């Protein structure tokens, strides 16, 4: 059994890849199209429940060249023949994802989004606005832990109502003090936490939310035509991040029920989590990393919803020019406009 999986078109034998707009698999040579059910008939789902040993190197099924892959790369392309190559061991056993949200945005759409975004960044250096740079946008299935849990929590503190009125030449301010307590419970579902050290947690958090109505059981077939990473952040590490998020959500939820006061302050609180479950999932992103003056600048698009986050490289020269232009414009407005009113 080969350690690298490549899905081939049942009609012509060329590489078969997932097509986001039709949510089916398309052969770019014979233009045949297969839905998930049709495709499953030709190529049976492999259940990789056992851990498979990681190898030092992997060979492309189509041309026999060695694949370029680092420790966490799970799906990639052969750099010689461009065939999609899926490294099975990295989807096996403990690395077998439970679910996947398939890509909805095509690479062309992602490039267009990046191009629009970078052209609005007036301080970005010109080289990041060129076509060769835009072409580097890559579709990646990123590993996420999806946490679900029950919560029980309370907040308590002091609240005030303030009432003022006038009588004669005096103003009266009446302050009433109350003690309040709110205890509640809630269930949180599918809180995503970035499970890859390579990807910046802050940006991965910002591309949320994903629409979970479109979540599918995992199949390696969805990986065909995209890059994929396996997790290298264990579920228990990710849990601490999730916990602090849930504590914050629950506190805010409880605070939203403190109404009818002019002001209040919380002086004690507690949120307890139970029934925590973590499910391993692959979520789609488009990624572009711009290297500029030795620093990485990340650009990410949510591969399902198209939401954009990113960090623009800043050209100091453009910053100075921009600053000078603003200075000149403000100065001209102040001098010629101000002279009208002096």
């Amino acid at each position, binding site marked *: 059994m080969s350690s690298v999986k490549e899905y081939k078109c049942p009609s012509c034998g060329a590489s078969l890849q997932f097509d986001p707009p039709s949510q089916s698999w398309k052969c770019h040579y014979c233009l045949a199209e297969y839905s998930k059910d049709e495709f499953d008939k030709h190529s049976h789902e492999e259940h990789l429940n056992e851990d498979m040993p990681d190898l030092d190197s992997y060979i492309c099924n189509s041309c026999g060249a060695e694949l370029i892959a680092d420790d966490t790369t799970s799906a990639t392309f052969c750099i010689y023949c461009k065939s999609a190559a899926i490294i099975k061991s990295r989807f096996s056993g403990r690395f077998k994802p439970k679910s996947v949200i398939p890509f909805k945005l095509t690479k062309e759409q992602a490039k267009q989004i990046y191009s629009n975004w970078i052209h609005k*960044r*007036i*301080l970005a250096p010109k080289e990041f606005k060129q076509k060769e740079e835009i072409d580097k946008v890559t579709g990646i299935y990123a590993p996420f832990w999806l946490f679900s849990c029950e919560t*029980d929590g*309370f907040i308590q503190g*002091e609240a005030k109502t303030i009432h003022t009125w006038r009588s004669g*030449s*005096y*103003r*009266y*301010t*009446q*302050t*009433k*003090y*109350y*003690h*309040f*307590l*709110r*205890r*509640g*419970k*809630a*269930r*949180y*579902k599918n*809180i995503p936490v970035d499970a890859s050290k390579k990807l910046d947690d802050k*940006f991965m*958090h*910002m*591309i*949320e939310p994903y629409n979970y109505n479109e979540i599918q059981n995992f199949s390696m077939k969805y990986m065909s035509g995209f890059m994929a990473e396996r997790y290298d952040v264990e579920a228990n590490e990710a849990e601490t991040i999730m916990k602090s998020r849930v504590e*914050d*959500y*629950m506190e*805010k*939820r409880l605070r939203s029920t403190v109404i009818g006061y002019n002001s209040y302050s919380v002086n004690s609180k507690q949120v307890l989590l139970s029934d925590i479950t973590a499910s391993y999932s692959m979520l789609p992103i488009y990624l572009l990393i711009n290297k500029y003056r030795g620093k990485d600048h990340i650009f990410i698009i949510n591969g399902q919803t198209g*939401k*954009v*986050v*990113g*960090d*623009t490289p*800043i050209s100091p020269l453009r*910053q100075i020019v*921009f*600053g000078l232009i*603003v*200075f*000149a414009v*403000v*100065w001209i407005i*102040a*001098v*010629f406009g*101000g*002279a*009208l009113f*002096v």
Partner: protein
Amino acid sequence: MYKRISIVLLAFIFVFLVAQFGVCAYSSDNVIDNLGYLTESEVLYLQGSIERIKDNYRLDTVIVITDDTQGKSSRDYADDYFDYNGYGVGSDYSGLLLLINMDKREAYISTNGKAIDIFTDKRIDNILDDVAQHLSKRDYYQACCEFINNVKSYANSGVPSNQYRVDTERNYFHRVLTMIKSFPVYIVALVISVIATLVVTFSSKGKITINYQTYEENGSFALTENRDSYIRESTVRTKIESSSSGGGGGRSSTHRSSSGRTHGGGGRKF
């Protein structure tokens, strides 16, 4: 130039002669009532007060009541009347003139010389408040008395410490030059450009669009305990300070009259 002025003067005198011929009106040197609103004793009383102001504060005070300003605006008429009739004390012709223009139902105060500094825009406004109140009730004598009393009290308190003059008629080019030389403009432009650059530099990251309810399962939230208990109350009483609008704003707006002299002043409809 002199010829034109003398023709204007002759026209003035002629008009006054005709006007005085028509109505029986009493006038003195400083109280010119063309419409006969004031009695002789009232005119004499006002003239007396005006002379005391002139002696004590070296300010010439003039009151003109007319319904014919020869097509001039109240401001120009008041300025010219003061300039061309030899009013004013000292080399800077200090003094002020109250014009009651019945044609346009407008009261206008023109200040000259030292009076420009004493009677700031704010003070002129206050005087006009008082005067217009009586004028709208057709109480002309009371309006004049109110004017004289105000002049006395402001003349007595002198030039406010924060007084400054603003020439409202300096030409645009001249004001642009002052703005170019003004240091705060550079500071404002520098601060705004630095802020704008920082905002553009740090604004591009994207924002968090999820909130505390995004991952909450619908309908799963329930309050199991909800308590609000009254502890105590307190009431504080504070005296409301009556906001006195005294003095503030030391601006005296100035302009130039047809004679070329600088005047201050302000007007009010009644």
